């Protein structure tokens, strides 16, 4: 099997719902019965005929035992080649108002028609008429001077050269316009239509061939292209008359139907994903090759014999194989494409059986062959379906590509985002590791020494010792503040304030000052993504200084820190921190002075915070209005 053929079959359009097996089998059989019925119905539609008053049916056949009567249409079995002479008659009107013609709708193999002893029509002049598989009709105008008023003599010389028995359909003699109409229909049906179908086949063969050429793994396409090309070639080749090398080729080509049916069988197998062994391939193509060789070597007669045997049985076998394969596939897969292929096989089988019956003489009064046309139509439809599916596959590839492009874009975006995240993470990690390093250094060195100073100062006692102890504690506090400010708090100032509160509460406890914590809005302070450690250090030191001032000067019992977000109009919410004490304010000083306050203002200014100071008899109140966005670099004072 060609593994590549698998997707071709597997990619078939599934029916909307998968039917249960038994129900589907029943349905499929009913559908095939309908297809057969429709075929027979279409075939049984009578071909346009000029009207029975112009029909000439009664003939006398000249034979060795004297003349015998015959009624057209008639079949003439017997040895070939031979010539059959028929004598008929018709009545012409006394006065001719228009041209009269003679029409022979169907004849095998060729006919020469004489009116009053003069040849008016010889079908052999049109070479394609000689093809027995073509349902050729022919007509000719009867020269006016030949016609006699009253009864006229009509003779037919029917040439039969096999392999089919001789056949002559009802002859028509009458006004040219009426006969030509009927003849025109037949030309359209049996001449023009096959050419049109064959042209389609040529185009499809080309398209499929190119597809196969560009995609060698699609063997099914290549095989179908070959079958179509062969079929088209046969349509356009004229049958040979004389023995010549060209005639041999022609004979081979015309006798190539078995080769074509072999190719069809191979196509079906490939399309349905069957295993294709070299032996099977050789067997399927052998009859066709034998006929071709016979045609090339032995000329038309040999080709003709070879076509009958083994050509016809091979074709029947191939078609049977195709029907078997497609119906099995339809029942197994239950998809639209398999059902369509099976129905096409049914149509072909119906037509072929009918044609075989015709040839065998079971249907004596007609000789219209339908298989070729049905085959051409089915091939065209099959090719169109394949092209359709190819285009659908291209669409799928397109949408797949589109999906891929969008997926790649998404992935790129994600990657970019993750790069940015990674950068951020790296930055945070670098900061954290730097902070850890610093912490360790301070811990091991400065921190330990400061703690020792605190302990020694306490032990030494006295006011001096207490001062030293307080200074060392203050240094330790500052150390903790710096370390804390370096922590990655993702712009949430509240997290820095939380640790500050703890330190400050511990610091205030010996002074008997309470620290109250009062959120003014539910969310607390807004988050500032741009917040950097230096902002935090400035703010916390500012707060520390405010607390120091209170401790030193205010004689307060409580410090209240309140904070919240406030929105002024349309702008984003801005944070505010208020530190208020319940001391006696800057008593006696109209404008508060001092290094502490100047420092606080400077710190506030550096990071864009506006500071306002209210002092009254019930305490000092420092209000810090945070900027909407903290500056990237320090604002110079």
């Amino acid at each position: 099997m060609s593994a590549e053929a698998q997707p071709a079959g597997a990619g078939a359009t599934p029916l909307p719902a998968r039917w249960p097996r038994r129900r589907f089998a029943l349905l499929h059989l009913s559908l095939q019965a309908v297809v057969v019925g429709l075929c027979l119905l279409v075939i049984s539609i009578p071909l346009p005929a000029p009207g029975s008053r112009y029909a000439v049916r009664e003939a006398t056949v000249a034979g060795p035992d004297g003349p015998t009567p015959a009624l057209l249409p008639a079949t003439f079995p017997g040895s070939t080649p031979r010539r059959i002479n028929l004598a008929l008659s018709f009545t012409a009107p006394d006065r001719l108002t228009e041209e009269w013609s003679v029409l022979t709708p169907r004849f095998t193999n060729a006919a020469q028609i004489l009116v009053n002893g003069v040849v008016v029509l010889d079908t052999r002049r049109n070479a394609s008429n000689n093809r027995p598989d073509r349902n050729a009709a022919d007509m000719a105008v009867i020269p006016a001077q030949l016609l006699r008023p009253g009864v006229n003599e009509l003779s037919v010389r029917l040439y039969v050269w096999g392999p089919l028995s001789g056949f002559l359909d009802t002859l028509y003699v009458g006004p040219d316009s009426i006969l030509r109409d009927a003849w025109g229909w037949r030309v359209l049906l049996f001449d023009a239509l096959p050419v049109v179908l064959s042209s389609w086949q040529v185009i499809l063969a080309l398209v499929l061939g190119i597809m196969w050429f560009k995609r060698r793994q699609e063997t099914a396409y290549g095989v179908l292209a070959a079958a179509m090309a062969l079929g088209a070639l046969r349509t356009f080749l004229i049958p040979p008359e004389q023995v010549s090398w060209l005639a041999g080729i022609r004979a081979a080509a015309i006798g190539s139907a078995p080769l074509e049916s072999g190719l069809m069988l191979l196509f079906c197998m490939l399309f349905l994903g069957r295993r294709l062994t070299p032996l099977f391939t050789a067997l399927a193509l052998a009859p066709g090759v034998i006929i071709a060789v016979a045609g090339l070597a032995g000329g038309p007669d040999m080709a003709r014999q070879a076509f009958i045997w083994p050509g016809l049985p091979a074709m029947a076998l191939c078609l049977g194989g195709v029907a078997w394969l497609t119906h099995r596939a339809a029942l197994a897969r239950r998809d639209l494409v398999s059902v369509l292929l099976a129905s096409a096989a049914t149509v072909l089988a119906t037509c072929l059986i009918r044609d075989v019956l015709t040839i065998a003489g079971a249907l004596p009064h007609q000789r219209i062959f339908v298989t070729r046309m049905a085959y051409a139509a089915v091939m065209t439809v099959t090719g169109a379906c394949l092209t359709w599916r190819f285009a659908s596959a291209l669409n799928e590839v397109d949408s797949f590509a589109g999906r891929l492009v969008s997926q790649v874009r998404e992935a790129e975006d994600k990657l970019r985002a993750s790069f940015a995240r990674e950068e951020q993470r790296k930055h945070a990690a670098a900061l954290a590791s730097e902070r850890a390093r610093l912490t360790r250094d301070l811990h091991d060195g400065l921190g330990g020494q400061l703690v020792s100073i605190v302990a020694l100062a306490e032990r030494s006692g006295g006011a001096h010792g207490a001062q030293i102890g307080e200074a060392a504690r203050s240094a330790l506090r500052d150390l903790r503040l710096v370390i804390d400010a370096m922590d990655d708090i993702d712009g949430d100032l509240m997290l820095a304030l939380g640790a500050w509160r703890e330190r400050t509460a511990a610091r205030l406890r010996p002074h008997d000052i309470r620290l109250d914590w009062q959120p003014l809005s539910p969310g607390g302070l807004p988050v500032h993504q741009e917040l950097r450690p230096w902002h935090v250090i400035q703010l916390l030191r500012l707060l520390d200084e405010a607390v120091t001032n209170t401790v030193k000067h205010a004689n307060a019992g409580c410090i209240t820190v309140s904070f919240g977000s406030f929105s002024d109009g349309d702008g984003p919410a801005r944070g505010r921190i208020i530190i208020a004490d319940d001391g006696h304010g800057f008593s006696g000083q109209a404008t508060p002075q001092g290094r502490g306050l100047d420092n606080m203002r400077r710190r506030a200014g550096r990071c864009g915070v506006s500071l306002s100071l209210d002092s009254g008899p019930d305490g000092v109140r420092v209000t810090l209005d945070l900027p909407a966005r903290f500056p990237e670099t320090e604002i110079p004072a």
Partner: protein
Amino acid sequence: MTATPADTGSASAPSGGITVLLVEDDAPTRGRLRDALASEPGFTIREAGAMAEARAALDQSAPDVLLTDLQLPDGHGVDLIRETRARFPRAEIMVISILGDEESVIAAISVGATGYLLKDAFPTDIAATVRDLVAGHSPISASIARFIVRRAQREPDAAARPQLNTARLTPREIDILWGIAKGFSYADIAAHLGLSRQTVPGHIKSIYRKLEVNTRGEAVFEAVQQGLIKL
């Protein structure tokens, strides 16, 4: 050193007093801490200046509270905490930290400490903190709370040290930690979360317990070995 049932059973101090084993190598600091505790009634204090001494003291009797520095001349305080935790599950363990930085405190918590004390804390605070601890109130700082919740909310990062298993923390516990990190008092947090104020310290102790690395501190040990945590 093997733990005997008698050891673990003797955690309850006689006459209601609190037995404290103080392990600190810096003599002035040790003296300061001892004085802070001794000045308050109800404390029985034993001192050690190194790991070996601390172990000897532990062999003698079980303390109610182990108060230990991390940097000891003959070993890591982390090992001492781990051993004490294994031998005396009912003993409270507190680490003495210079800076209260999360690296050292978290390392101590992960081996079984349930609190920390700043070395320069005021004497009254020192005694009060130890009392609170014995009463079941584990102290937690805002920066430690911040460290834990931020670690809990980040993707697990294998490279992050010290390792901290925050997976077992409940959303409520994380809420409490957030409140502490943002500087709110237990009363504020309790009111905000609809808890009783008294239950908050219990939650914090539970948080500490959940953060303990039970497999004998392998992760921490490994980190120490690699020099990633310098205690």
